[in-house]
């Protein structure tokens, strides 16, 4: 069960509490910013910048979490919205300020499954941004309803879009 934000922290949250919440959320859902960034950016430096930008936005958006959707849905929203709005030059400028204060380590990619995973990411990056986002959430086991909540489209639309995106992805992967 994902750690949730206690109601009383919605307003007037102090820094220490926010830090605790952020840490617990990241412990449970740190893969989401990484997945979104890997699906969005090929270049490792841009990817790292995007991850940091997403983390920053998650931090800033913590007080707005109202538990009307699951935490993973909410983090996906913030991560995707950041990725869609993100522009490399701006990011570099703003994130440069905290480059030395945040540490990121990428896991090594030397196992066969890591290589296959990279192939999958590479194929996802070739899809339209919207298709890539839907595929990513589908791979993470999210329901049509949850995907529709993130994207702001109908469940029927998600279904149509997903089957089309899966066909494209299968073609890209040579299946």
């Amino acid at each position: 069960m994902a750690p949730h934000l206690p109601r009383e922290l919605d307003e007037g949250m102090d820094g220490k509490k926010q830090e605790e919440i952020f840490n617990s959320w990241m412990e449970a859902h740190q893969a989401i910013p990484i997945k979104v960034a890997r699906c969005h950016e090929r270049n490792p430096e841009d990817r790292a910048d995007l991850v940091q930008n997403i983390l920053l936005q998650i931090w800033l958006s913590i007080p707005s979490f109202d538990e009307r959707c699951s935490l993973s849905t909410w983090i996906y929203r913030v991560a995707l919205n950041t990725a869609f709005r993100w522009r490399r030059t701006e990011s570099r400028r703003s994130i440069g300020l905290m480059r030395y204060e945040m540490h990121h380590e990428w896991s090594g990619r030397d196992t066969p499954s890591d290589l296959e995973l990279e192939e999958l990411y590479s194929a996802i990056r070739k899809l339209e941004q919207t298709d890539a986002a839907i595929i990513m959430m589908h791979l993470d086991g999210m329901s049509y309803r949850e995907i529709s909540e993130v994207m702001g489209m109908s469940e029927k639309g998600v279904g149509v879009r997903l089957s089309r995106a899966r066909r494209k992805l299968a073609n890209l992967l040579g299946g």
Partner: protein
Amino acid sequence: MAELEKYEAVWKTAGHGTVSVDAGALARHLKRNGETFRILVYLRDFRELLACFILIPGIIFMGMHLELPWSWYLGVPASLWVAGYILYNRPQRGSETLAGSVVECLDTSIQEVRHQIRLLRSVFWWYLLPLDLSCGAFFLHIGWETRQLGWAAVLFTALLMGLLLGVTWVVWKWNQFAVERELEPRLAELESIRNSIINGDDPVSSAPEKAH
């Protein structure tokens, strides 16, 4: 599709990477830089406004100190007009949260970019023309007052008017360049993502692509 299922299984089992964040350092950084950042955003939004409000006392002081003609003071209503226009059209900054749905956030971004494009496209009418009219009137007035100097007065006035037009053209061109280089491609990009989501919502419009 069997191949895809193999990759889907890999997605579920493989490690996607780890990120360790020093949340304390992030908090300290945000606290330290928060105020500076807010001031920078404020100054960026209001730099023209500040310029106008600095300009008005400057115009009045110089006019009185140098005993300049009445046309000099046309700069005051022109500056007030520009300041008022900026205040009236200033973008509504809501909370910067990105926790809404993707379509909602895209709509907000599209609205912001369109607003910025509209302001820069019409910069001549609300910014340059009022200031040009006041400056031009003053230069022509000076030229008329010094008409006894003959051609020298005509040439000097023409030079000032030419300079004014040159500056106007450069500022206008610079703004149009910013629109074409940055804002319009950005708008197209945001609209394309939004349309892609909205069209995906409509099975009829997505049918032709499904046939591929």
